[in-house]
């Protein structure tokens, strides 16, 4: 057992974990942040994607200990109070989810995709093909991706507006 200190959704956290504990299990089982899901054993499905220091990471491939000292953001930490993150709102408005199981991981990946492309300036324009390619690490079985892709493109615009306003 070791003590791991990290920041999760802006709060300092200290947890006793077995050395083999994966970050996803720390989040779900010890911190009760059950929005991050486990959908496979092989880091293929992306249901467990969270942000570590602002970058999308599959939390089932990271040991809790490896996340020590980092800033972890989960699906529970992206809205401002009752105000949804633009990506969350876009998923709702475009029917980008059905059963909702892959959705948290999908949203966390999608935010990272948009952030990376926005940070590339005008050359970072997102199109459908790019979104489809970059969502490759996340599997959805319900939506056929059609509305997820729409959601991400819609959110890219909303996030740009939000960033410009800040």
């Amino acid at each position, binding site marked *: 057992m070791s003590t791991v200190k990290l920041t999760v959704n802006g709060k300092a956290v200290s947890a006793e974990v077995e050395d083999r504990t994966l970050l996803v299990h720390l989040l779900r089982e010890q911190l009760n942040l059950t*929005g991050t899901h486990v959908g496979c*054993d092989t880091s293929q499905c992306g249901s467990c994607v969270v942000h570590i220091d602002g970058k999308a990471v599959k939390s089932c491939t990271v040991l809790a200990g490896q996340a020590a000292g980092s800033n972890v953001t989960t699906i529970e930490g992206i809205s401002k109070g009752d105000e949804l993150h633009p990506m969350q709102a876009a*998923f709702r408005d475009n029917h980008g*989810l059905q059963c*909702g199981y892959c959705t948290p991981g999908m949203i966390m990946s999608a935010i990272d995709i948009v952030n990376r492309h926005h940070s590339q300036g005008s050359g970072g324009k997102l199109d459908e093909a790019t979104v489809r390619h970059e969502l*490759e690490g996340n599997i959805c079985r319900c939506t*056929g991706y*059609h509305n997820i892709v729409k959601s991400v493109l819609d959110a890219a615009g909303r996030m740009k507006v939000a960033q410009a306003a800040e």
Partner: protein
Amino acid sequence: MGVEGIGASVVRKEDRRFITGKGRYVDDIKLVGMTYAHFIRSPHAHAKVKSIDASAAKKMPGVVDVLTGKQIVDDKVGNLICGWAITSKDGSPMKMGAWPAMAPETVRFVGQAVAVVIAETKNQARDAAEAVVVNYEELPAAADIRAAIKPGAPQLHPEAPGNVIYDWTIGEEAATDAAFKAAANVVSLDITNNRLVPNAMEPRAAIGEYNEAEEHFTLYTTSQNPHVARLVLSAFYNIAQEHKLRVVAPDVGGGFGSKIFIYPEEMVALWASKKVRRPVKWTGDRSEAFLTDAHGRDHLTKAELAFDKDNKITGLRVKTYANLGAYMSLFSSSVPTYLYATLLSGQYNIPNIFAEVISVYTNTTPVDAYRGAGRPEASFVVERLMETAARQLKVDPAELRRKNFITQFPHQTPVIMAYDIGDFGASLDSAMKAIDYAGFPARKAKAKSEGKLRGLGVSCYIEACGIAPSKAVGSLGAGVGLWESAEVRVNPVGTIEILTGSHSHGQGHETTFCQLVAERLGVPISQVQIVHGDTDKVQFGMGTYGSRSAAVGLTAILKAMEKVEAKAKKIAAHQLEASENDIVIENGEFKVTGTDKSIALPMVALAAYTAHNLPDGMEPGLKEGAFYDPTNFTFPAGAYICELEVDSATGKTSFVNFVAADDFGRLINPMIVEGQVHGGLAQGIGQALLEGAVYDSSGQLVTASFMDYTMPRADDLPSFKLSHTTTLCPGNPLGVKGCGEAGAIGASAAVINAITDAIGNNKLEMPATPDRVWHAIHG
């Protein structure tokens, strides 16, 4: 239509909790004193269990107990059952081999559980499972249909000699043979319908909780039909009495059929919770899902179509071998029979049909209903035959279909189904227009000049949805009725709860069902709440599968609504001192026609519960229930056309366009309907291009993870162009048909027809991987 009523694309009420991570799936639930189960599963496809030594495991840290198959049998827990009786052509009943929840003597597929470790933590259970020593004596295995039906094949169950479960027929053999004898042309095809793994993103999970003081059990489970689970667990499995068992299916992360059935893990979690006197939780991982969730499809078929000299179809003859795996899962027997062969008429006027279906046991995971259940297999047979026929007869594929479409309704097929309504020509027209069918030859020629192989494939599907009616399915061997129940409760303050026996696991019931109430009463959907998925709250239900939630479940709600409205009108009339016949409901108010007198719904509700001033003799309260049993199946139908290009150097397929024109009757929420179609198309295209469960000859599942089984990802699929034509279903008052399975039923044939058109070789099996396509091109 109000802004939130029927026909409005209202955004979903349930989404807020899913997009904020507040959904509550089974694995999210923690109970006081909860223990964790880890199953010990057979690594062999067929073996005798000689001994199980758990002595070392029992001493390991945190281990509460290790329970075996022998113990569950000794405790008289029943064997798993198949609930649909099929009779062979010789009159004998189907041959059901015994399926204990954990195998005490013989294992028949890789992944079958033989024991379970219960421990304080998941990791402790997993660690201890490593220390359980199971001594197996391996037996020869039959890993596919061909191996299982060979003379001298390994025998799975003593009850089923030759591994044949049933040999069943439908239709008129002699008349069909005569049609073939008289035919001007005969088209035949050998078809493999590849085995699929449903792969809902949420792996199955179960928590059993035994309350010793009350002798009461609770099961939290990933189920599409909690009431049926309770019924079967109590009536057949002897786990608990029905009134002593509560089944809760909270948020469920996709089902696609795989979560209809009762599984051993649910039985064991309940049984074990009584053994260890603590809650027992099991959460499957993806490998367990691959090995133990019921698989889908897996047919070998020989199909022939007879035509007269005018290219009118005169007969269809089909012989299908269906693999049901090692045991008969809950609905398995009905899938290749009454859900498959009864749809073999497709959209066509076929005077003579004869089908023989032989279901067999193999040493593989049990096979049962998966999205579409039998209908995708039927549609694939018919639509591959039609495309093949068009090429052989050298006529346009769309025109050959149109020439043979059923145009008069109702239409009785030779294989039971009576289609109530449809307009197949309208769907085909719509799809052809959307894809610019007429312009295709020019596009194909242009692609060819650029060195690319372009193809176009048509698929005109029909399905039978909204299953029941109960009387009909009962006469065909179903063990249950397939009605639905509902209750509408208007609370004293005017908010409304709808209790439904349908179960939502992604379909958006929490929104669409409220839209019905919003439409009828003119209240916002925020004032209405759905209650579902809990047998302690909802009186009864048959669950969600077979696209039955709207046609059957929502109609039950409508029936309850009508009762509520009738009573509310009486109360309003009494309060307003008007005649009941003069009361109309508008915008949440009960108005006296032709006057300005009205009373708002909350006041009517309050009056019903205060009961200070009700009509003489009226029972207080404002809640009503209804059971609804439909009079027929519903028949959604449509036309899908796919245009694609094949890279002859790599065999890789790329979509140019995919159009879908569906007739689902009335659309409650078009946005949700289209989302359902998108998902179905992805699964149908997945079957055509990517997915396939592969066993080696020893019965090992080679594709048992997402690294080996190719799931469709965003980059594999196109965006879809959808359109809707509408014939209102006459069989239910809402005119709805069902949309959940359409995409999966119609898409596969469109894709394979398009690829075979592109490459000029009709011999191509699913999944049409680049490797297979390359070989089909280059020989």
